[in-house]
């Protein structure tokens, strides 16, 4: 997983370090883990920082670039609940850390 998404992004923001990984300056703007998104917010899916298995599984469940993800509940340490493509899903915190959104 080296790249950013293939959606055009305004350039010029500084590179961010997410989970210890250097992001390239062009694609790194405001890309953050889903776990950092507050309840009620809607964000767009960018990518999953994980192996092929989880990537493919999430893609089948509707996590494809630019899909809207609405966070229904992010109450630490409570459940992490989101809506993706009209389906309500619960995620473990570990997965929510790996899903990158903007």
């Amino acid at each position: 997983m080296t790249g950013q998404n293939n959606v055009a992004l305004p350039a010029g923001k500084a590179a961010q370090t997410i989970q210890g990984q250097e992001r390239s300056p062009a694609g790194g703007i405001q890309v953050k883990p889903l776990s950092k998104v507050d309840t009620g917010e809607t964000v767009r899916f960018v990518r999953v920082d994980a192996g092929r298995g989880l990537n493919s599984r999430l893609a089948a469940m509707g996590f494809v670039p630019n899909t809207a993800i609405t966070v229904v509940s992010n109450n630490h340490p409570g459940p992490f609940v989101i809506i993706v493509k009209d389906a309500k899903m619960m995620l473990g915190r570990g997965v929510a850390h790996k899903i990158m959104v903007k």
Partner: protein
Amino acid sequence: MEQITIALAGNPNSGKSSLFNSLTGARQHVANYPGVTVERKEGYCRHKGYEIKVVDLPGTYSLTAYSAEELIARRYILEEGPDVVVDVVDASNIERNLYLGTQLIEMDAPLVFAFNMSDLAKQRGLEFNLEQLSRLLEARIVPTVGNKGEGRIALLDAVIAAAQQGRIKRVHTVQYGGEIEEERAKIEKAIVEREPQLAEKYGARWSAIKLIEHDEEILEQVQHQEIRDLVSTSIAHLRSIFHDEPEIIMADRRYGFISGACQETIKSSVELRHDISDSIDAIVTNRVLGLPIFLGLMYVTFFLTFTVGKYPMYGLEMLFSWLAATVSGHWPIDHALWLRSLLVDGIISGVGGVLVFLPNILLLFLAIALLEDSGYMARAAFVMDRTMHRIGLHGKSFIPMLIGFGCSVPAIMATRILENRRDRLTTILVIPLMSCGARLTVYALFIPAFFPPHWQGPVLWILYVVGILLGVLCAKLLRMTLLKGETLPFVMELPPYRMPTSKAVFVHTCQRGWMYLRKAGTIILGASIVLWAAANFPRPSRQTLAGLSEQAVRQQVLQYSLVGRVGRAIEPVIRPLGFDWKIGTALIGAIPAKELFVSQMGIIYAVGAEDQSTSSLADRLRADYTPLVGFCVMLFVLISAPCAATAAMTRQESGSWRWAAFQYVSLTILAYGITLLVFQIGRI
């Protein structure tokens, strides 16, 4: 009569099972796919002169090679070639559900879409232009309501029409865009030329798509290194263009295809759709209330299974003891006593031993059906996932393990709620360590016999805790060794809450009950009869038994029998545990069921276990053994070899005798080791 085979594919929670039940009614057959703990359900129905075989494929989101369920589903479609594949789609969540449909279209399977739960979709203000959508997807679409049986006839009509039509030449398929299509065409051409076996088996286009997706199963079947290299080059090329895995881009394109098809054909008039479910979820998954609610519901499940289940169980026990007493009472004195014993102690008590579990199993599955059909089960999994994850198990594993404190047999059946094979096997293997009700009868004899009243509670508690701790340790160990593998990160769909329908719950419950009787029942019955024979043969000569009291006769028979001999033979082995031949014999005699240990001890000491003189048995035990030995016996009974019924269940649910044997042997070794340790240290 003409025969056609159809396969039901669909997402988890699409209502596939209820549609399957409504199509086939009671005419179904449940088994496991060979070698894996994935359920294979088949059923039959008749329609317009056709005998239709319906195969229920595992619920999946996709058809990749990443999980056993998905592999099974796609192998079935590709290799067994059903006449029609019915894609069961949750009509209230079309977009996500059609993803699987795009893959079925790609596989070129003759396809019918069942837009299930169409009542719910209507309620949510979704309007479909089915005619147009059907033209775009090039397949018949039938609205259905699985749990109410609506749309059944129309669906069967569509299935027959599709079967008669056979494969069609498709106009619309997912277009992956210039670069990917280019690479696909290259690989497809190479497959046709160099790998005709792939083209023959799966179709060249599909194989090429899967190869670009880096599908391990298809890659393995590629025979030429050049083709492999070609694929790697293509993937690397695409990766450099997209800065992402080609398979992700392809998933994106599939979703693009779907939204293209849906845009024109689906209208939504209501925006809010999760409101009621949301408010229920706010309560049941609340961080303070979630756990108590879950534990409360588990208590109700346990109560229903074991406390309410006790009454029909007593009824059955009484019926069988009445039957046994009647047969014994009318038996001519001194004629073919072995035959009487076979009938009474072998067959009647064996059949009784099978049926006695039935009320528990029916009630447990009634409770599980209610929890699952209402949509709560997914939430329960989440509530427990944090804790269970630490020991390498899935949140849902908690439920079968809890049931295990009542009885391992229904508990092992309850592992069917787990979708992942490794989770399921691990749970099955450690369930016997949850101290079941049968073992309580052994504790009830031994604890008062050896321990003063103020020690009795703590000793019982220690036994349960030892079981739980060992269960946790074994689960961890299994996940680190034999059942190693990525613990699936927790992602789970939360289906909207629904009112379970009585019909669906009824069918589900009866199915399980029948399956238990047919599968496990026969093995349990067989084992009881074999063990009866071992405890009664060879018999001592008539002269030895002449003039002895009934109890003394039974004592002599047992000691002379195979069980008694084996019990004596293993004495040197069990000596280091503090056990003598009497305990050895009782342990061997208790192989069919743990509670038999008490009655076997009764026979050895020639005191009737049935009459109320167990206190005298306790006295005799106290005279012969120290409290340490008593504790060691209980420890050994707790950990060692599960009962025959449990072994039969493990065999059935894991799909192989190997796992049952592994469980049996390793638990016995574990019991031996721990008891040895406790006895040797305790003696100092």
